[in-house]
C-alpha cells in the first residue's frame, strides 16, 4: 500500500525565553493508507509537537526548522497559510486531548460542527449534515444537541463532538492526540471503539498519540516510541510488544504491574526524563539505562534497522531479551 503521509527529518524548535528547545529532533516516519500509527511517549517527549507540526498548528513560539512533511506527494510543511487551510480539516483532521478547552465554550455545538463544511452548502444541508455527524458518533437526540453548549455535555460526549467536528469535512488522515486520556475507562473504551469503527467505515488513516501502552496495543498497527524529541524504536505492534529492542520501551513495559505477585517488586526506570534544554552527550536515555556502556555516553546512537520493519536507536539492543508472559491474559 502507498504512504499517505511521510515525515522526513522533521525538526521543530520552541523558543523559551532566550533558549531554543529542540522538541522534535530529526523525526522520520511514514504512514500507509488505512493504517493506525501510534506515537508513544511520556510528557515532553515531542509526540504532540510532532502532530502539531504536521498539521501546522504550532504555538506562536514554535517553528519547524527543518525537514519535510509530505502529504500525498506534496510538502505541506512550507505551505502558505491559505493553501494549508485547504488541507487542514479537509484532508487532515485533528482530535485534541482536552475537549473542554478545544471546543469554544460560547458557541453552540451545531455552529461549531458546521464551521468546516463548504461555504456553498445551503443552511438546511449543513444542518442535516450536522445531525448525521452526531448520529455517526453515537449521540442520541442529535437534533436537540445542536442547540447545546459544550458545558452542557459530559466529558465523553464532548469528545464525541470533537470527533464529529474533525470528521465533518471527511478527512483522509486523522490525528488523534491523546483522545481518551481525560476519560474514564468505560468511556475510553467506547470512544476508542468508535474511532476504530469510523476509521474503517470512512477508510481513513490515523495517527494516535498516547502514553498508554494498553491503548496502543489495542488500536495501532504500527508503533513509534519517542524519547527526548526522537524516535527511539519503531516496529509493528505485534513485534514491539513481543520483542522490544530498546531499553526505554522495554523498561516501560516492565514497569507496569501485570499479574505481579505482591512480593515481586516492580522494575521502574530510574531517574527522570531529561531536560530538553540540556540534553546529555551521547544517548539521551543513557543516564537512566541499565545497559549503559562507555560508548553510550560518548556517541549518539543512530536509528538502525535490526529486522524487517523494526528500527531501534540503541548501541546495546542485542542485550535485550524478549518479553515473556507479561503481555498475555487479562490485567
Amino acid at each position: 500500500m502507498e504512504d499517505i503521509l511521510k515525515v522526513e527529518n522533521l525538526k521543530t524548535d520552541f523558543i523559551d525565553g532566550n533558549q531554543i528547545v529542540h522538541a522534535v529532533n530529526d523525526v522520520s516516519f511514514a504512514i500507509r493508507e488505512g493504517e493506525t500509527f501510534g506515537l508513544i511517549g511520556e510528557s515532553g517527549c515531542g509526540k504532540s509537537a510532532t502532530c502539531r507540526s504536521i498539521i501546522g498548528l504550532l504555538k506562536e513560539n514554535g517553528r519547524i526548522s527543518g525537514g519535510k512533511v509530505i502529504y500525498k506527494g506534496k510538502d505541506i510543511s512550507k505551505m502558505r497559510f491559505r493553501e494549508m487551510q485547504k488541507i487542514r480539516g479537509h484532508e487532515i483532521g485533528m482530535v485534541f486531548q482536552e475537549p473542554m478547552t478545544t471546543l469554544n465554550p460560547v458557541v453552540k455545538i451545531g455552529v461549531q460542527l458546521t464551521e468546516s463544511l463548504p461555504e456553498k452548502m445551503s443552511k438546511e444541508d449543513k444542518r442535516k449534515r450536522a445531525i448525521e455527524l452526531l448520529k455517526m458518533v453515537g449521540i442520541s437526540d442529535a437534533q436537540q444537541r445542536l442547540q447545546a453548549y459544550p458545558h452542557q455535555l459530559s466529558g465523553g460526549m464532548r469528545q464525541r463532538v470533537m470527533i464529529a467536528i474533525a470528521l465533518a469535512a471527511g478527512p483522509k488522515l486523522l490525528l488523534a492526540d491523546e483522545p481518551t486520556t481525560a476519560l474514564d475507562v468505560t468511556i475510553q473504551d467506547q470512544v476508542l471503539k468508535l474511532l476504530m469503527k469510523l476509521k474503517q467505515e470512512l477508510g481513513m488513516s490515523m495517527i494516535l498519540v498516547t502514553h498508554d501502552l494498553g491503548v496502543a496495543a489495542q488500536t495501532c498497527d504500527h508503533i513509534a516510541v519517542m524519547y527526548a524529541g526522537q524516535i527511539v524504536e519503531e516496529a509493528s505492534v505485534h513485534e514491539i510488544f513481543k520483542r522490544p529492542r530498546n531499553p526505554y520501551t522495554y523498561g516501560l513495559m516492565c514497569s507496569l504491574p501485570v499479574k505481579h505477585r505482591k512480593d515481586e517488586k516492580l522494575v521502574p526506570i530510574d531517574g527522570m526524563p531529561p531536560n530538553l534544554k540540556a540534553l546529555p552527550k551521547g544517548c539521551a536515555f543513557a543516564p537512566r539505562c541499565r545497559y549503559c556502556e562507555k560508548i553510550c555516553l560518548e556517541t549518539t546512537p543512530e536509528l538502525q534497522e535490526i529486522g524487517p520493519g523494526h528500527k531501534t536507536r540503541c548501541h546495546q539492543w542485542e542485550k535485550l531479551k524478549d518479553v515473556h508472559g507479561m503481555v498475555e491474559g487479562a490485567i
Partner: protein
Amino acid sequence: MAQDQKMLLSVRDLTTLFPIRQTIFEKVQRKPQKYIRAVSGVSLDIRKGETVGLVGESGCGKSSLAKTLIRLNDPTSGIIDFAGIGDLANAKRKDLRKMHRKIQMVFQDPYSSLNPRMTIRSMFYEILSVYDLCDRTEYEQKTKEILHMVGMPDDILDRRPSAFSGGQRQRIGIARALIMEPELLIADEPVSALDMSIQAQIINLLMELKTKMDLTMLFISHDLRVMRYISDRVVVMYLGKIMEEGPTDEMFSEPHHPYTDILIHAAPLMNPEIRERNYTIEGETPSPIDIPSGCCFHPRCPYATEECRKKEPELRTFKDAHGNMRQLACHFPLNREKMCP
C-alpha cells in the same frame, strides 16, 4: 491478609451530601433543597496492616469518602470509628488534631498540593512545631531523615517545590504525610498525575514504606492494574455507594457485580494479539444529583430487569467459595454458583 488482625478503622453508614446552592428565586418559590450524593451509606472495615483499594470512575465518591474520613468534608450522618481515638464523624474541630497524627493523606496532584511559596524546610518545620513532634534542635535532623526515607537528597531544604519534577514532588508529599508517623495513610490517586516511567518508582516506594513503618493504607485509584498489584482488598464504588468488596484476587477472578466485571474488562489489554473482547457498556455515569431509581447502576447494566429498576439492592455480606467474607449489592450476581448463602 489475616482476618483476625486488629480493626483500625470501622466506618458505618457514612453519608456525605453536598447541598446545591439555590438561587433567590428558588428560595422564594420554596423549591426543595437538592443535594449531590457524594457518599451514601458506606460501611467499611480496615484492619491493621492491610492495604485497601478503593476503585471507581470519576465522580463515584472515592475522593469524597477519603476526604470525609479525615474530615476535610463533614459527614451528614454515620460513624467513623478509629481505634484508640473514637468516633471521628462527630468529633469537634479541636479534637481533630489528635486524629491527624494518626491519619495522613497523600494527594493526587503534586503540583497543587505543595505550597509554592514555602521552602521544603519551612513546610516540614511548620508541621513539626504545630504538632510538637520533637524538640526544636532536632527539626533539621528529623526532616532530613524522612526525606532520606523517600529517596530525596538532604540538601534540598532551602528549595521550593518549583525546583522539583512531578515524581520528586510526590516524594516530598509522601514525606510530609509520613513525618507524623501516622497509622493510616490515605493515598488518593498518588501516581495518576505522574509519567509512566515514574509511576513504578512511587508505587515501589509506597510498598517499601508501608512495611518499614508498619502502615495501614487506603489506596484510591481508577487504575485496576495498579490496584490489583498493591491492595489486599478492593472496594468498588459507584455513585457514592459500595457495589462490591472483597479480597483482591477473588474480586478479579470471580467478580459478582456486573459493574466490577465491566471495570476489569474495560481496561485496554497490553496484548495486541487479543483485541476481541466480549462485553459492552453503554452510556455514562449519571449525575449524582438525579440518582436513578432502584439499583443506581441499572441504566448501564446489561443484565438489568424490572426488579433492578424498582428495588434498590442492599449491601449484603456473604461468604464465597474460598471462605472469604465479601460484600455485594446486586439482585442478580454473576458467578452465583461460587457464592455461599
